[in-house]
């Protein structure tokens, strides 16, 4: 066994998991607190990437671009909440799905009109574009940046949720919305902030990944389904659950892709293993979800005190 390779793969899994977490944490809060299914959450991921890319293209530094784009994402999230999402909270889940799918089409078309169809590559400062050597391991610097960025935001979010007054309100709102309101909290404002934070985190994930994969139309649509899987596996409304489920799914996906063919070769012919492995590794995430749902329908970490 090549332990160096395994370690690299673990890092890669961690990185994928953290990106998923950035997406899923907002999704799970919006889902858990407002009971709102937002398929267009992935569009924020795309818009974040394009915002950041345009600022870099206008000569901004990458770091400054991220900071400005984060503010932009908060505004975008707030506007969407105020104008559209708020009207939908009382509707049923099917209406959410339909309307937010419409939003996806709108966002994709707007990006197409504004930035053209060809996507956008985002240059990195040369400091981040190189590699770091750790003993026998050579890792892309930017991967480490993503991992530390993701962990940092996860830590900030965890601080926000567990320590701040806003976090208390969010948790209180998740367990008993009526009581929060009856104690003088403007629930509309709270929802707006939660939604905008979710949009910002999703946008941040887009900004982090864009220098690797480029910003492109529909980039969020590919990942949103996996993010929903994370939310379900982790337990709806649970940031902690989203974190563990993200890492779990990131690792399963990455390790499945890396080692499944070797594993299958033990049981079957090389040829068959080679074709079966990619299909099976693509399925792994869904198999995991089906198993979790069949045996633990509330997810792995259902948030305390949420009434069904």
């Amino acid at each position, binding site marked *: 066994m090549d332990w160096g390779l395994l370690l690299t793969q673990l890092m890669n899994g961690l990185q994928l998991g953290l990106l998923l977490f950035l997406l899923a944490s907002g999704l799970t809060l919006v889902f858990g607190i407002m009971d709102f299914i937002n398929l267009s959450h992935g569009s924020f991921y795309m818009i974040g990437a394009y915002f950041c890319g345009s600022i870099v293209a206008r000569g901004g530094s990458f770091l400054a671009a991220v900071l400005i784009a984060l503010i932009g994402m908060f505004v975008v999230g707030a506007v969407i909440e105020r104008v559209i999402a708020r009207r939908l909270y009382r509707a049923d889940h099917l209406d959410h799905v339909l309307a937010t799918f419409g939003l996806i089409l709108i966002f994709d078309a707007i990006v197409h009109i504004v930035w053209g169809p060809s996507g956008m590559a985002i240059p990195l400062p040369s400091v981040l574009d190189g590699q770091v050597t750790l003993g026998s391991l050579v890792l892309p610097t930017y991967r480490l940046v993503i991992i530390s960025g993701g962990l940092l935001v996860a830590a900030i979010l965890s601080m926000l949720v567990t320590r701040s*007054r806003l976090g*208390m*309100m969010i*948790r*209180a709102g*998740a*367990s*008993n919305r*009526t*009581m*929060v*309101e*009856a*104690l*003088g*909290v*403007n*629930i509309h404002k709270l929802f707006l902030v939660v939604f905008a934070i979710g949009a910002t985190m999703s946008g941040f994930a887009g900004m982090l990944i864009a220098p690797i994969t480029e910003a492109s139309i529909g980039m969020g649509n590919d990942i949103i389904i996996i993010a929903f899987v994370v939310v379900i596996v982790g337990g709806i409304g649970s940031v902690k659950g989203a974190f563990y489920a993200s890492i779990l799914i990131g690792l399963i996906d990455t390790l499945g892709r890396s080692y499944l063919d070797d594993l299958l070769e033990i049981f079957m012919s090389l040829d068959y293993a080679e074709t079966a492995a990619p299909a099976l590794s693509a399925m792994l995430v869904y198999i995991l979800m089906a198993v979790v749902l069949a045996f633990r329908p509330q997810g792995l970490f259902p*948030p*305390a*005190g949420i009434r069904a």
Partner: protein
Amino acid sequence: MLDLKGVETFYGSSQALFGMSMHMGQGKVTTLIGRNGMGKTTTVSSIMGITPCRSGEITFLDSRIDGKPPHQVAQRGIGLVPEGRQVFPNLSVRENLLVTADNYAASKSPWTLNRVIDFFPELQARLNNMGSQLSGGEQQMLAIGRALMLNPLLLILDEATEGLAPLVRQEIWKCLNRLKESGMTILLIDKNIEELNRIADYHYIIEKGRVVWDGTPGILQANPELKNRYLGI
């Protein structure tokens, strides 16, 4: 201070309040008594705006609050201790107290975390426990403390001692007496007539969503048949 005039409230198609009217004076303890399911909690929800009334008027400090959303009602200075306590189970005691704390009425001597703990010393040791880990009595103290942290002008307690052990009830009654002495206006709902008689300034008995009798504790005490007719077995 708080006036209800002809309040009618519905749950969907089912009417729960049939023209509730009552009046509460500043600094007084007023009670709502009646059997279960007669509309006490609905009255509270209507005042708070949780279940908005369909007709009638609710006036608090000379301004109408019917039709206002709950958070605005609370911000005008009404603190709610709901039926079943409803502390946030996933928040610690400290967080439960702090999460909605504010001083909407700009009180000169506002309630603080320390003051609440002085008032309910039992909570001191439990500050870092989750809401769900408290006993019923502790939860009730926490719920009262949480409402006090809003620095309300009016405190509403729905089923102040229900489901509590006798000794704990005593404790709660003592606290309520202290609150009354501090000049707090209180709307109190409970089943314990003896205790209510001791603390209250005025009683309202409701049945089937309307007031069927109102008067002072003295009169209620003097008329045991009232008690049996509307409350007893």
